[in-house]
């Protein structure tokens, strides 16, 4: 029983070490797009009193990894989406090349503002681990 526990402990420690090692590797992504979409029927839902929030008032991007904001309007009517007016079926693709905080006037938010925080590329091993952990949490939420 004790040897089984030791073995399990060993496996867990090994797995954690492997995970840590992988987590510290340089990060590459298959897409740099952070996509937000207005689904069809959103305007009708809003008109019927539903509070539909699609775009958060704070968006966090990472330079070189996830640094292109993509907005798509799949609804049947024009919509103010983030900083801009978008026609039905239209998409808007906004790249960021500098780490900074960007403020946009946005009437779709109660505050009247939308903030996009573009963080530097995680070049240090621990910052890569942190970035991966945050992406994992976001993917599961």
């Amino acid at each position, binding site marked *: 029983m004790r040897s089984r526990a030791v073995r*399990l402990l060993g*496996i*867990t420690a090994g*797995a954690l070490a*492997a*995970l840590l090692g*992988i*987590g510290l*590797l340089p*990060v*590459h*992504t*298959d*897409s*740099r*797009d952070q996509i937000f979409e207005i689904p069809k029927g959103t305007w009708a839902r809003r008109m019927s009193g539903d509070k539909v929030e699609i775009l958060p008032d704070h968006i966090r991007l990472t330079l070189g990894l996830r640094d*292109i*904001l993509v907005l798509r309007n799949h609804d049947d009517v024009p919509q*103010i989406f983030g*900083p*801009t*007016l*978008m*026609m039905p*079926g*239209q*998409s*808007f*693709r*906004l*790249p960021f*090349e500098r780490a*900074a905080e*960007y403020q*946009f*006037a*946005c*009437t779709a938010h109660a505050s*009247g503002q939308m903030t996009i925080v573009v963080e530097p590329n995680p070049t240090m091993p621990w910052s890569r681990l942190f970035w*991966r952990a945050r*992406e*994992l949490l976001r*993917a*599961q939420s």
Partner: protein
Amino acid sequence: MKHNLAHSLVGLRALVAACALAMITSAGVANAPALKAGVFDPPRPAPDFSLQSSEGRELRMSQYRGKVVLLAFGFTSCTAVCPTTLNTFAIARRKLGPAAANVQVVYITVDPERDLPARLAKYLHSFDPTFVGGTGTEAQLLAVRKNYGISAEKKTVDNDYTYVHSSFAYLIDRNGLIRALMPYGHSPDDYANDLTLLLKE
């Protein structure tokens, strides 16, 4: 033991998920867009309007077909955003050299009360003599802002007023299509880059 196994499986699943995320490879990194500005797909025609020009004539968006237009909204009493943007436009145009003849800056006021044509002209010419301003009635300007998705809110400050307004600029191509939106803060080089690309089309 079953309890331990279940825990191990949950842990293993989390480990696999984490590894999958960590192992995302570099193979398919999307090509960076050619324009520095945000790009619309498909582009839509720039809504036409009829306003009073700072040059004393009628100002229509459609009159600039064949040129690339930089369209921005603001007001001449603006102390921060507008002067920076207009100065950026002026520097970008100078960087283009002779090709700048095919670039037109159009600046539409959100403050018709103060920004009469002569005042607009004086203000804009201090940046670049080719810049053209547009003004009109409150209703006309509101309609233009609505068509272009521009916000502008009048705010009282002490005994005066100011405006909080959209600070980006539209890039409109030679065919009158709204191709891109450049957020506030981009450099003259970024504008020159995008204008050059649009002029080459």
